[in-house]
């Protein structure tokens, strides 16, 4: 090996460190790739799975690469998004709900409820972190993409229902934390 200066060695060390982090971060793909594949197996349209699944994988990989805190946010986001991913698919299979003679798509309320669960879970996890807002944002983005893979069964209304649910689920946790602080 050729003799190198300390500055060259430091630069090489930094490159190796970033490579190592990328390798370590790639573990999150073990979580997100099966999700995208199962969405495809459940009959979600291929272009949608490619776009949303691809975005989910890239986002998760980037977040885990940046910091361990965001790797935890990815895990929390995927877990939080799982009900939103699975419930609409299951509910859709049961058919339409009839309320006062009118047919209602059950996916809308299911997405909303799954969103509340996701928002609540992510907010609770964020309370344990040092940088709560960035953790919450990262986890919510991952949860939204995970959930959208499933709840877009109900179209854009399902996605909006999920996001509304996330906000509704987050609000009480934030309020409680603020009240404790004051």
């Amino acid at each position, binding site marked *: 090996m050729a003799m190198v200066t300390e500055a060259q060695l430091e630069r090489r060390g*930094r490159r190796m460190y970033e490579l190592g982090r990328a390798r370590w971060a790639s573990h999150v793909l073990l979580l997100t790739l099966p999700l995208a594949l199962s969405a495809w197996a459940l009959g979600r349209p291929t272009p949608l799975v490619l776009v949303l699944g691809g975005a989910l994988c890239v986002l998760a990989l980037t977040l885990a690469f940046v910091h361990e805190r965001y790797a935890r946010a990815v895990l929390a986001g995927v877990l939080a998004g799982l009900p939103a991913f699975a419930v609409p698919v299951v509910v859709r299979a049961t058919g339409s709900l009839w309320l006062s003679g009118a047919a209602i798509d059950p996916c809308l309320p299911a997405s909303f409820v799954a969103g509340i669960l996701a928002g609540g879970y992510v907010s609770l996890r964020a309370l344990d972190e040092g940088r709560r807002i960035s953790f919450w944002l990262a986890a919510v983005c991952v949860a939204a993409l995970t959930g959208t893979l499933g709840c877009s069964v109900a179209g854009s209304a399902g996605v909006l229902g999920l996001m509304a649910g996330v906000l509704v689920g987050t609000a009480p946790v934030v309020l409680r934390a603020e009240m404790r602080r004051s």
Partner: protein
Amino acid sequence: MDAGQREQLQLAMRALAAGDRAAFKPVFSTLWPVLRVFCDRALHDSDAAHDAAQTALMKLFMHAAEFRADGDVIAWAIGFASFECLSVRTRKVRRREHVDDAGLAAVPADQLSPEDALIHADLRAAALELLGSLRPQDLEALRGAFDGEGPAASGPTVRKRRQRALERLRIAWRKANGHGD
């Protein structure tokens, strides 16, 4: 390295493992000299030690994200360096095993092989170190014996003195090397 520095390094390594890039510089500047010294001592070859320390440091950074927060960073780094030093030694031994006949024929018959020369140099250095630990009277007696002083200087007193000096030299050699051969 004192306890405070060690604690600082431990904190910096934990931060780096988590993804704080700002902790890279302190980890690098503290660990690099430690690995250099360790490899120098293990290999007794400055160039090989430099290479081994470099490789160990690169591997350490490659695996930095896997560092466990409850682990000791110095022990962890020395683990990488030990592995590299062992690899260098193994490579050296293998290279020696694969010296072909042409290589052996190139060594003049009346000249020591590089390996024998190295052994002689080591023995000479060890002997000089031991002689330095003897008393001046013993050294004088031994020099007389090695210089082959004439019969005038070989009375019973002188012989006895040389015998004692040689005995002390033998004891010192045993102490340093564990055997008298």
